[in-house]
């Protein structure tokens, strides 16, 4: 019995330590935003009074509203396009199955593990020849059709009741009407989960925007945070302010939709 009690204590201690380490950098980020650059560098852990200065400095370095508008635009439009294109494809690959479509889908699944690094050179040349360097279209286009999200919708469509579709067909609904008026409302929660996944990865994307967006007017938040680290004397407090702004939207989404968030993540591999 004593042994079990010890084991219990060990579990709680271990989990508490891991939970503390997981959450601590968030505290560090908030405290850092209120401290001067020098204080951040020496690891000051208490709140300071430099928050105003840090915010002011950050806003003087960049056109912050513009940056946020750019990031929001890329994330929202990218998410919307991805959801429309991929949910339609996932639906079709499941509902209108043929030998050919199954083979095509199997080919796509094999390509799921192709690393982006192997695509970025040809994609860069394609996008620059199309004159889309420095445009949001250039950032968005290669990411719209995501095999992962198509797969996600295809898996979810397996649970879509066939009787509903058959009944709709008998009632004379056209295929696009079935998709729009029956499938879409039934699959609401699948769409919600996919929205979270796609929006987050789009908001947090770094490498591809780094390649495509080169002028200062078009920069997104990850590029701004990244660019602040270099230079002769990086202002650590302002970097913390920038980091908070970059993290806040996804943090809010997480806390508002926590259950759906985790379900979406896990559901994608079932």
């Amino acid at each position, binding site marked *: 019995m004593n042994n079990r009690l010890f084991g219990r204590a060990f*579990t709680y201690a271990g*989990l508490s330590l*891991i*939970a503390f*380490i*997981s*959450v601590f*950098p*968030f505290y560090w980020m908030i405290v*850092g935003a209120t401290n001067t650059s020098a204080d951040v*560098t020496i*690891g000051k*852990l208490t709140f300071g009074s430099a928050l105003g200065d840090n915010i002011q400095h950050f806003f003087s370095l960049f056109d912050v509203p513009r940056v946020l508008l750019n990031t929001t635009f890329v994330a929202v439009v990218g998410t919307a396009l991805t959801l429309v*294109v*991929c949910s*339609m*494809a996932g*639906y*079709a*690959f499941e509902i*209108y199955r043929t030998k050919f*479509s199954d083979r095509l889908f199997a080919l*796509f699944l094999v*390509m799921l*593990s*192709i*690393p*982006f*690094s*192997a*695509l*970025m*050179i*040809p994609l*860069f040349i*394609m996008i620059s020849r199309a004159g889309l360097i420095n445009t949001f279209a250039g950032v968005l*286009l290669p990411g*719209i*059709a995501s095999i992962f999200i198509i797969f996600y919708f295809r898996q979810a469509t397996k649970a879509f009741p066939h009787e509903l579709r058959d009944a709709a067909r008998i009632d004379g609904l056209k*295929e696009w009407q079935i*998709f729009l008026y029956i499938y879409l409302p039934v699959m609401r929660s699948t769409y919600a989960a996919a929205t979270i996944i796609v929006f*987050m990865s789009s908001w947090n994307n*770094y490498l591809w925007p780094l390649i495509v967006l080169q002028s200062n007017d078009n920069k997104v938040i*990850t590029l701004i*945070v*990244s660019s*602040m*680290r270099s230079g002769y004397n990086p202002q650590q407090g302002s*970097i*913390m302010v*920038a*980091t908070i702004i*970059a*993290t806040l939207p*996804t*943090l809010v989404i*997480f806390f508002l939709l926590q259950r759906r968030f*985790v379900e979406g*993540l*896990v559901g994608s591999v079932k």
Partner: protein
Amino acid sequence: MEDVGFAAISRRANEWLVVPGAAVVLIFVFLVFPILWSLWMSFQVGRGMNFAFGGFANIVRLTQDPVFQRALGNTIVFFVIQVPIMLTLAALMAVALNDPTLRFRGLFRTAIFLPCVTSLVAYSALFKSMFADAGLVNNVLLSMQLISEPIYWIRDPFWAKVLIITAITWRWTGYNMIFYLAALQNIDRSIYEAARIDGVPGWAQFLYITIPMLKPVILFTSVTSTIGTLQLFDEVVNITEGGPADATLTLSLYIYNLTFRFMPNFGYAATVSYVIVVAVAILSLIQFYVARDRRTQ
């Protein structure tokens, strides 16, 4: 009769051209074509846009390029050390959290999952400042007398690697834990009941019941983590910039440097990128082979 034929054709067209059409076209343009073009490029030599067929010249160059070999070595070190540490931690945490008698489960789970909401660039900035020479982590370690002088996390080739591994583990362990947790919740509790009645000790239950039941998730998480680690880019750029002296240079960062930093050499960069493609393919195959279901042989 003709009408029916037309309707059938139109439905077929709907099914095959209109609905998944956009996605299929986009995948061929932005995935199938580039990956084939990249393969073609890897046999081309020349700088900028002037290509000439070079046969295996780029592959020969790989064998003579010390920077490539260092990047490959670093990448291997990262995934050979980091992936097992992270997946073991994730599995242990999931087992601990799956105990229904544990209190504050929701709180622990939320806290441990929280790092996943940060963008890679943002958490890299946080880690860079926490691990500064005179920074927080060194202060804490010094005051606990675990070290006698500060560790130069970012400037020392060895500790820079440790820092990158620590950072990735912080960001991704909770993410992987969620998958293990979901899989554990699908295991029928009566199996454990039966094992306990038969007197099977806890560690044996974990080894002979839990691990085999988790096999598909172990496979999934190791494949995705391997792919992720082989593509490591955001963290090394934003924490160490691949330094010091290329100690944290990864293959992805080297490809980026070859393409966008140095005088562009698309052919050679494409060859390096195919090293990642081949590595991902081989490692995925090995993992599928190791995790295959032996009963069906």
